[in-house]
Structures are given as structure tokens and as C-alpha cells.
């Protein structure tokens, strides 16, 4: 632990202090140090979106942020958002519309979709596609994912 830096961050409401090697990505820290394996590691260079997490309320790539950069930040993962039931409408819609097969992309997809839901804009299918353009799904062909997100966005009051 030659370069380790003491880092304090809040993960899903719990304050965590660890000595972290600067080279460790946020998503690897969450998975390996905290056992939060819901955020997935896919491409590791910011293309696939499987590692999407929320930092201080904004979605980011967990593989393009160092864990030490999250010092003082509030990090939320798929586990936190599932437990708080913030994602329950999206999760239900994904289930009903068959918007996943293998499920690898789903946590990141839900994080990106919820970002759009929170914007409270009644967006078109085209805009939904644009917003999830940074999240790859290799199973579904996206149609069902867009259906699910559209249902939640147009169903909310």
C-alpha cells in the first residue's frame, strides 16, 4: 500500500473510511472492499455503462472515477436504490416488459433510466434511446428496455 490515501465517503447512507490505493476505481472499491457487487465491471474504459453509479446525485462511470476521488462524496449504488425502493417502478416495468435477459447491464441501465425519470420530463422514445446510449445491452435489442422506461416516464404523475 505504497500510495494509499485515507478516504472517507458515504455509501448508500453509511459512512466508510478506508485507506485506498489511488489506482483502484470506484466500482472496484465498491465491489471488492464493500462487497457491493450489484455494480458490474464490463469494459473498464467507459463505453458499456454497466458500472454506472450515482455520486453526489449525478450518474457517473464507476470505472472512470478513482475511489480516492470520491473522498467526501455521497455514493449511491443499485443496492441502495433498490433497498430504498426508489427504483421499484422501473424494476417492475423491466420485469413486466421482459427488459432483460442475462441481467448484466440491468443495474447500470436502471441507474441511467432513473436519472431520466428524475428529470420529470415527458421525453420521447428517441430521447430515451439517447439517454441510454451509453449503456450497452447485448441481449434485448433495447426495444423492451425503451418500452419499460417509457411506461414509467409516462405513467408518473
Amino acid at each position, binding site marked *: 500500500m*505504497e*500510495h494509499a490515501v485515507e478516504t472517507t465517503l458515504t455509501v448508500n447512507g453509511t459512512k466508510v473510511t478506508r485507506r485506498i490505493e489511488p*489506482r483502484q476505481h470506484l466500482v472496484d472499491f465498491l465491489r471488492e472492499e464493500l462487497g457491493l457487487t450489484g455494480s458490474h465491471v464490463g469494459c473498464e*474504459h*467507459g463505453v458499456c455503462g454497466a458500472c454506472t453509479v450515482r455520486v453526489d446525485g449525478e450518474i457517473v*462511470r464507476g470505472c*472512470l472515477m478513482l475511489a480516492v476521488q470520491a473522498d467526501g462524496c455521497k455514493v449511491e449504488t443499485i443496492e441502495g436504490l433498490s433497498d430504498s425502493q426508489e427504483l421499484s417502478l422501473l424494476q417492475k416495468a423491466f420485469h413486466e416488459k421482459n427488459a432483460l435477459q442475462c441481467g448484466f447491464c440491468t443495474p447500470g441501465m436502471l441507474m441511467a433510466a432513473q*436519472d431520466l425519470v428524475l428529470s420529470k420530463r415527458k421525453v420521447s422514445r428517441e430521447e430515451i434511446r439517447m*439517454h441510454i446510449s*451509453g449503456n450497452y445491452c447485448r441481449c434485448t435489442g433495447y426495444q423492451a428496455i425503451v418500452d419499460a422506461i417509457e411506461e414509467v416516464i409516462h405513467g408518473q404523475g
Partner: protein
Amino acid sequence: MKAPAFAYAKPKSLAEAFALLRTPGAKVLAGGQSLIPSLNMRLSAPDLLVDITGLPGLAEIVPGRGTVRVGALVTHARIERNSDVRKHIPMLAEAATHIAHAAIRNRGTLGGSLALADPAAEYPACAVALEAIFTIQNSRGERTVNAAAFFKGLFETDLKAGEILTCVEFPAGGKSVFLELTRRHGDYAIIGLAAHGSRFVFFGAGPTPVLVKGNSLAEAKAALARVEPPADLYHSSKTKRHLAGVLLERAWNTLSKPR
């Protein structure tokens, strides 16, 4: 693909940052949306990353008389949404929407993109089209440089070792158009165009932003005919020049429409 080992420091002042940047193998880290992938792919192996995101005063958007000053640490997401940017430098706000994806735009910064000088990136072309002025600081003080002089070659800029790009001043107003062709939203540009007045600046068309001037469409087209864009995996140089011509006409038609 994990990054190699390096040390990390997050200075609280510019003076502290300049001192850290004297360390051999030190590199500036801003939003990290290009640097961290290059570390992950082991294309870069710095000994020390100096995280400048904690420096005060570099993340402001300040409208002035005929200009808007945008701090180097302002993120793409803020550029996209900020009302002053949208009103006075709409080209930049439009360009930001084309950069990668929402999660990346939340962290990537104006200064980071300009200092990297990727030939397919949006902001360098905008800065050249708008004749922006870059403020660069070092331990001895600050200097300014024009956008066109800042971009010197492929990923090569006027920034010297130990210097930090801190702010960019954009002239406000004037008619502008921003167009970009990609295979999918968020991909790197096949070819793109930032047009302002009679300045047509193409990106993805050479090692640096390529400026074509023309007071008539014919004049601009003639100048474009001499440009040789580098081929990529899917598009020949000829195809890219053709597509550049298509964008040029579209931009011309938009710019010449009465308001």
C-alpha cells in the same frame, strides 16, 4: 484492464498544484474521462496524478461585456444546461450534447477536453471557430493564447510542463451552427463542423481543428477541397471530405437564413 500504480494528490491552491507538478512524472487530473481510460488501457503511466478539481475558482461561468468566461473545471453537463452559455455561446451548449453520454458529461470538463486536444473532439473546433482566448497559469503567473495558436498538432498543445489551463474566454453572440456526424449518438465524430460567421472549423478532419474560411459558399467549398481528412476504419479520406461538404452546405444554409 486496471490502471498501473501511481500516487495521488489533491491540492487546495494553484501554488500547491504548481509545486506538485514539479514532481517528475506528474500529470494533471481533471474530470478524468479521457485520462482514466488511457490509464486503464495502460497507454499512460504517470507517477503522480495531481487532481485539480479541488482548486477554487476554476469552475465558474461568468458572463461579461461581450464575452463569457468559462472555468476549465466546468463540466460538459453544466455547459449543456447553463443559461448564460445557452444564450451567449449556443454553439458550445450544442456541442456538449454530442459528447459521449450523460454519465460522462457529468464529470468531463471543458479544460480537460481542450488540454487533451483530441482531433475528433468538439470543443477545440468550437474554440477555434469562436476565436476563444485561453488563460494558462504557471508558477510565475499567467499568460493568454488564442485558440488557433493553442492547438499545435495531434494531441499537442501550447501547454508547457507545469502549466494549467484555467479559463477560456468566448466572445458572445453572432450566428453559429454546430453539426456532427456519428454512427451512434455519443460516438466519436466521423466529421463535425463548428461554424461562426465566415469561419468553418472541421473536426475529425486533421490532427488539429481545420479552419476553412469563405465569404461565399463557393469560396468555402474551394478551400475545403484542399483539406485531406485522415481515413478511419470505416470512412476513406474522400468520404469524409464529401461528408464535410454536406455539413458545410447545411451550415451555410442555416447561417444565411434571415433571423
